[in-house]
């Protein structure tokens, strides 16, 4: 081991990363908290930039007291020097830089900084905790590329981070627990929400009620939303789905229709709702790129972890949405458990049992129950016409994706990509992959996307070499950074 305190790199400063950071720092570990955003909090605790002068950011959030506690804890550790926060750091890979025999694992986190993410810096650590969160699942429909169509999470981020609204009259649609806060949040900000279109059949919710009721906090939250829908007079259209978005150059209306019990659109039920903004969401997908780069096992689309939130790679922990979508409460519990475990293991001991384990069990059960009820309509792909663009980066239509399977012998996402270029562009399939999977019936598998962010080749060529190690901030010798180049790992 290296001299001085053990160093833990926590990647992601959302609920899981913050909880992990505080738990580990409180137990004598030197933590480097690395995050892409300018301020800690992640997507969940996203706040207006301080320059915008919001007087009451808490109005946009629930559980503000939890955030206050995390924020104060972080401030205290920053003050004490036990945590170093590296905001605006976009991690593109994590490298196992195994040290001398017997010294245990060592890691180098490579991140891009600068206004254009044009420079790469390296952060050394004895252990890594991945709290990289998730991103929104987007499913296409005719007209989804029109300006005015945004993701549900995007609408919420605009609201929370910029205090801007996407239009005066909006429709919110899709499936999942995010739609309610988006609709009520928009309404509270003065947007007329013309409809909340949810493909879920509420009868399925009641069938899952046993599991859902096991989470009192969540049930209360749910009841509050129902109350708020009433209060904001938002028309609620359950068992409905979007058929298409219309407009000349900009969104003017959306067509929605009722779903039959077979998950198909019921003929004759389509109706058009005029609107300027359309926020659509179908839940989240875990970010697993860094885990995959490290060789961690991924089950389905979730990073696989044990009871202590350890991955199968020694020295690597994972917590929050990256191990399975479950919301902020679960992320906080997992982060706390992971931080405790990392601290204990770095000190060569086993962690004490944590009360957070019970919260984790309960919220995981709740998340699993939600997952069984909130699903995109079974036959959503039927609505996607052949001329609908599926991959925006490479402008690949649904017709070409279908043809790759029917005419050219593709049988998995990789081959569909090779034969059509869907997923080869700037976003590397992060947006279109669930859509391509749904259109073709292929299983969605971990995509092995490396680097996790586009890296200038000149920086890639130097990554890990000595001039890569220092920052411009005159803080080159801060704990958690190493000015020595790592030893090359090849002859």
């Amino acid at each position, binding site marked *: 081991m290296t001299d001085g305190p053990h160093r833990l790199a926590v990647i992601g400063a959302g609920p899981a990363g913050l909880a992990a950071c505080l738990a580990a720092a409180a137990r004598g570990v030197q933590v480097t908290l690395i995050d892409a955003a300018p301020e800690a909090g992640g997507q969940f605790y996203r706040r207006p930039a301080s320059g915008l002068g919001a007087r009451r950011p808490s109005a946009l959030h629930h559980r503000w007291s939890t955030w206050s506690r995390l924020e104060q804890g972080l401030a205290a550790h920053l003050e004490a020097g036990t945590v170093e926060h590296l905001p605006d750091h976009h991690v593109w890979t994590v490298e196992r830089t195994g040290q001398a025999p017997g010294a245990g694992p060592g890691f180098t986190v490579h991140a891009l900084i600068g206004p254009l993410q044009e420079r790469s810096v390296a952060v050394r650590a004895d252990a890594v905790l991945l709290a990289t969160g998730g991103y929104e699942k987007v499913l296409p429909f005719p007209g989804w590329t029109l300006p005015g169509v945004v993701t549900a999470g995007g609408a919420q981020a605009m609201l929370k981070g910029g205090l801007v609204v996407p239009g005066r009259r909006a429709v919110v649609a899709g499936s999942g627990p995010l739609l309610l806060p988006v609709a009520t949040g928009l309404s509270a900000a003065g947007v007329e929400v013309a409809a909340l279109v949810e493909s879920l059949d509420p009868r399925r919710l009641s069938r899952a009620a046993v599991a859902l009721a096991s989470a009192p906090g969540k049930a209360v939250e749910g009841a509050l939303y129902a109350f708020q829908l009433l209060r904001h007079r938002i028309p609620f259209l359950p068992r409905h789905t979007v058929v298409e978005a219309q407009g000349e150059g900009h969104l003017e209306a959306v067509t929605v229709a009722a779903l039959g019990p077979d998950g198909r659109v019921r003929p004759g039920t389509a109706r058009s709702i005029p609107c300027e903004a359309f926020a659509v969401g179908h839940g989240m997908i875990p970010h697993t790129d860094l885990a995959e780069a490290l060789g961690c096992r991924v089950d389905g689309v979730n990073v696989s972890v044990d009871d202590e939130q350890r991955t199968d790679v020694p020295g690597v922990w994972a917590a929050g949405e990256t191990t399975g979508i479950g919301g902020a409460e679960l992320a906080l519990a997992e982060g706390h458990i992971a931080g405790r475990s990392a601290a204990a293991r770095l000190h060569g001991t086993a962690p004490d049992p944590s009360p957070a384990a019970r919260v984790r069990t309960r919220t995981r059960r709740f998340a699993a129950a939600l997952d069984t009820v909130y699903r995109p309509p079974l036959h959503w792909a039927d609505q996607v016409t052949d001329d609908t663009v599926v991959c925006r980066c490479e402008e690949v239509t649904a017709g070409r994706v279908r043809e790759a399977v029917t005419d050219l012998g*593709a049988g*998995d996402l990789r081959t569909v990509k090779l034969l059509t270029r869907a997923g080869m562009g700037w976003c590397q399939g992060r947006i279109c992959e669930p859509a391509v999977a749904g259109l073709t019936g292929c299983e969605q598998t971990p995509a092995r996307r*490396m*680097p996790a962010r586009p890296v*200038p*080749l*000149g920086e890639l060529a130097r990554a890990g070499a000595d001039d890569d190690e220092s920052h411009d901030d005159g803080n080159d010798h801060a704990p958690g950074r190493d000015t020595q180049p790592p030893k090359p790992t*090849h002859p």
Partner: protein
Amino acid sequence: MVGAACALYAAREGFDVTVVDRGPVAGGTTGAGEGNLLVSDKAPGPELDLALLSGRLWADLAEEYAQAVEYEAKGGVVVASTPEGLSALETFAEGQRAAGVLAEPVAADRLHNLEPYLAPGLAGAVRYPQDTQVMPALAAAHLLRASGARLLTGHTVTEVLRGKDGSVRGVRTDRGELHAPAVVNAAGTWGGAVASLAGVTLPVLPRRGFVLVTEPLPRRVRHKVYAADYVADVASDSAALQTSPVVEGTAAGPVLIGASRERVGFDRSFSLPVVRELAAGATRLFPFLARVRALRTYLGFRPYLPDHLPAIGPDPRAPGLFHACGHEGAGIGLSTGTGRLIAQVLAGGRPGLDLTPFRPDRFSEEAV
């Protein structure tokens, strides 16, 4: 790709062809290749003869499929950074010319007319107009479709069926038996495993390679450009990591950067040290690339045989079994010639090239 080419030419000879693959089309090394149809990196000998034959067949196919398979006869440029390197390269090119390769010396002061963005100070180059590129997955898919062969993807061959006299009579898959008097092993890097199902040995080993893909750019790299030491790496027997910069633009916009070679088994994990060397090599050749972003990397396993030559032709140890695998990094380019030769011997004719250097049973048991 090799299987697709075998199917195409065998079908043209009148055979009823079934193609069996445990994965999808182009799911193995084909889908991880750059699609090089190269003569420039080959010394005079049987592989170069096969490359020249294949190049002619690709040109014929291009008359019909050029657009579908992104066939692009852009030519190769091999650059030397030192005068010594240049004279070695020119000697190499002279031998190639005698064997029928077009190889034009390019003086240092003319180099930037060919490739305006090349680094300054290079000693000179040789231009190879016959070097060509296709998009390999599209090529395999379209040639398969053109062959009219029955395609069974997702079927895993579990056994090569042999009759009482030892001759091959088909294969068993996880979904049933397929009977045929001739079985062609075009399993690439997994060709050794298929051979062993027939009870014969073929020492195919994986040789891992990474490719870096950049963001799409307007055409700035016009040819396939690589450093002269690439040829030495291709011919090397070492298991250790070797990288030499190979840079080329593509029809779709991204620049592809290779080439690394290492024998690490079927290890699919990302290797920053390898990718770092590829990036360093590419930016030395083309300094403008330093500010261009790498969007992704991919890796594949070249099917490597100990003498760097593929196994092509009938296997005397198992009558009815034919091999068409082990093309290392040149399988896309050599596929058409291989397919044509296999079709010729399947039909009982005389192959257009002497198959002796490619005999599948040429490796002694000790080498296995």
